[in-house]
């Protein structure tokens, strides 16, 4: 009965969003099996594939252009916390609630199966795909060389671990959004600490680099998106504060816009919003809303005119945003 009601709301919301002239328009959907929803997703950097961690403990992979389901990875009841593609799209990594760090190749064959000491909150591939960073809960971030399965570096926060990790695309920098509220920037060649951003009072939950690596874009519990100059670690801009917490951030391929998912901190089931900001001027470009809960992931596709989103709704959606 509840699901039926939600479906009705979804239909109304779609109809309304199509009527609003300046709103993103829904272009395509990827339906999920009955009774299944996504926990979160990952889009391959080349925009060819999307992987969804689903509520039935399976990861489903689609080819985006043909909208065809390509593969289903059965995690046999285990709950992943995060999935990420390697930069070339060939590998898919999942960080698990039991501390497993698994990497599959594009055929779905399991290539690596590591066990860390605590459940994994965040992962990031290096741009060349040879290294992976993982954040076990409450423990230092581990940087591992995938081929040799060798621990290259261990990067501690003061307490409680890291919520989000990222490498810059040029391979020069690595950054962590830490639950002690700091953002730490490391030299990705030797993982020496380059800068600490201590100006945030609340926890940053999402962190990305701008496509050219010159800026870090971070957002979190304070509802503010903060732009940080990578070289200096200085905060150069803060986007208008929202009542909800920032949960997901993505930069458009040209670096000119930032898509951000917001959750209502007092009521997770409340409709969430995805705001698209002009990364240069800091002005709001457009808004997409869910019917229940926030957008749990998504990314720009191709030239940035399309945006794929996932939420606790029953399908993935691709929006035309210009």
């Amino acid at each position: 009965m509840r699901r039926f009601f939600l479906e009705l709301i979804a239909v109304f919301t779609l109809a309304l969003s199509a009527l609003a002239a300046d709103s993103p328009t829904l272009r395509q959907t990827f339906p999920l099996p009955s009774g299944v929803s996504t926990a979160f997703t990952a889009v391959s950097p080349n925009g060819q594939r999307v992987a969804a961690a689903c509520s039935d403990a399976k990861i489903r992979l689609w080819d985006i252009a043909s909208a065809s389901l390509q593969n289903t990875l059965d995690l046999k009841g285990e709950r992943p916390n995060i999935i990420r593609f390697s930069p070339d799209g060939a590998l898919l990594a999942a960080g698990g609630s039991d501390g497993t760090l698994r990497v599959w190749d594009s055929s779905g064959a399991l290539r690596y199966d590591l066990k860390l000491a605590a459940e994994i909150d965040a992962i990031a591939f290096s741009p060349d795909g040879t290294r992976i960073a993982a954040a076990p809960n409450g423990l230092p971030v581990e940087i591992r060389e995938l081929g040799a399965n060798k621990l290259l570096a261990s990067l501690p926060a003061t307490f409680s671990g890291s919520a989000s990790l990222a490498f810059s695309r040029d391979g020069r920098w690595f950054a962590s959004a830490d639950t002690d509220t700091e953002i730490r920037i490391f030299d990705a060649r030797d993982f020496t600490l380059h800068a600490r951003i201590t100006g945030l009072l609340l926890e940053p939950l999402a962190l990305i680099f701008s496509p050219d690596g010159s800026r870090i874009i971070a957002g979190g519990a304070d509802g503010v998106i903060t732009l940080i100059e990578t070289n200096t670690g200085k905060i150069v801009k803060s986007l208008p504060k929202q009542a909800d917490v920032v949960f997901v951030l993505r930069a458009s391929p040209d670096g000119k816009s930032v898509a951000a998912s917001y959750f209502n901190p007092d009521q997770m089931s409340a409709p969430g919003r995805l705001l698209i900001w002009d990364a240069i001027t800091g002005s709001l470009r457009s808004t997409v809303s869910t019917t229940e809960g926030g957008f749990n992931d998504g990314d720009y596709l191709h030239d940035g005119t399309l945006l794929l989103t996932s939420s606790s709704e029953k399908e993935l959606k691709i929006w035309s945003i210009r």
Partner: protein
Amino acid sequence: MSTPFSRREILQKSLALGTLVIASSHGPSAMLHALEQNEQCKPTPPNDLGPFYKRLAPETASLRAPGDPGMPLAVSGRILNTRGEKLSGAVLEVWQTNHVGHYDVEGYRYRAKLIADASGAYKFDSVVPGHYPDRVCQHIHYLVTAPGHKPLVTQLYFATDPVFEGDPDKNFSRDPLIHSRELVRPVTLAGDPKDIIAKVQFELCLERA
């Protein structure tokens, strides 16, 4: 785990909205150390920080201001390490919602820093935190640090929470974020009927670094 959210908590909650499944998380590794010999005090189980931790909380033992609505609450306890040594000077940060389940993110209401005294003791006055819509149980967050010891991030829960229906032994896991029964503490009521105060003791035990 805490009130909404670490990123992982948001994901869990988000998933729960959709349908099906949520496997409960594993037990904390700190529990293993309790099995070590020569330890007089079992490390307090950790529980997630949550996204509402805010740095630079004021040093005060009075979280409750005069006239604040809600059931007055007095919390006290000691900070020890696994050898049973009292950790004088240990620093606690505590934060919670107000009586209706709302965190102050803009300011520092119901947020405080406390210093354990010479006997490792601490205490503060507050109100019983409220339930908020998507979190099952009432709770108070703790971050405890002491030189030479691992920082402890955990949460205090109340045995009187209606969610437990009077039987926290049986029902504590109704909140999927509570992994350990010992974080659910008894509550006693004191004072005259017109001025009742809820009292809770919460002793915390830190692991050596």
